[in-house]
């Protein structure tokens, strides 16, 4: 039964956003990179332009992919697939995974 107060599309967006972001970051994949020394965006790695910023690309990819899927999944299916607590539990798990992965800086 559909709960009238739930917004499964929005919840899916938030859950997927963190998952897609983590995947992009872990795979070191970004749809574009920004090179602050030359003030230029590139679709591919361009080492001669100095250090790259991938974060903008990760955020953009997470926003676009999760929004597209959230809109595409029918409401009934979304409510059956994800319980309400997943809206906060999935991002929490992603945060724990991020913290575990980033331990590499402290050893």
């Amino acid at each position, binding site marked *: 039964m559909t709960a009238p*107060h739930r*917004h499964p599309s*929005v*919840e899916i*967006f*938030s859950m997927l*956003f*963190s998952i897609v*972001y*983590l995947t992009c*970051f872990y795979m070191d994949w970004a749809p574009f990179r*920004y090179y*602050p*020394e030359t003030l230029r965006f590139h679709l591919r790695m361009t080492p001669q332009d*100095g*250090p790259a*910023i991938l*974060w*903008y690309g*990760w*955020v953009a990819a*997470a*926003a676009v992919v*999760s929004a597209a899927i959230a809109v595409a999944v029918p409401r009934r299916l979304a409510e059956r697939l994800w319980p*309400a*607590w997943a*809206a*906060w*539990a999935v*991002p*929490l798990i*992603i*945060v724990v995974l*991020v*913290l575990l992965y*980033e331990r*590499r*800086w*402290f050893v």
Partner: protein
Amino acid sequence: MIVVLLIVHGLLAVALLGAITHQAWSVVPRRGAAGTVSFVGRFRTVDSAAYATAVVVLFVITAIGGALLYPQYRIDVRTTLEDLQLRAANGVFEIKEHLVAIGLGLLPTYWLYWKAPLVPEQAAARRYLTWLLAFFVWWGFLVGHVLNNIKGLLP
């Protein structure tokens, strides 16, 4: 210009920190009705829902400010930290950028869960979403300030 942006970014972060901390404290389960007279009691007896939109707006604007400052950080600060072999300082900033990104994705759900009328069955989800965002904001605030002042903090 970059200094002005940095100061504005810091001031917005202070406002965000205050709003999310009030709200996060207000959703801590209470033991009995006592405690409203004390400073802590008054701190938590706020209209929690009233902070939600302000938190969303402040979070987005502060994140945009941080994103605009990021290129300067990447060129100047990060390379300095690498030269000084301060791996932990780089690490806490890496975590900060991840938490801000995840927080941005969380905002629509957080805002909807705080939208009136508040549904009692969603109280737990509201609480955990708020605490998650509060953790992100506190981490970002402390890391930002420590890194901004790191040359003065080091011996």
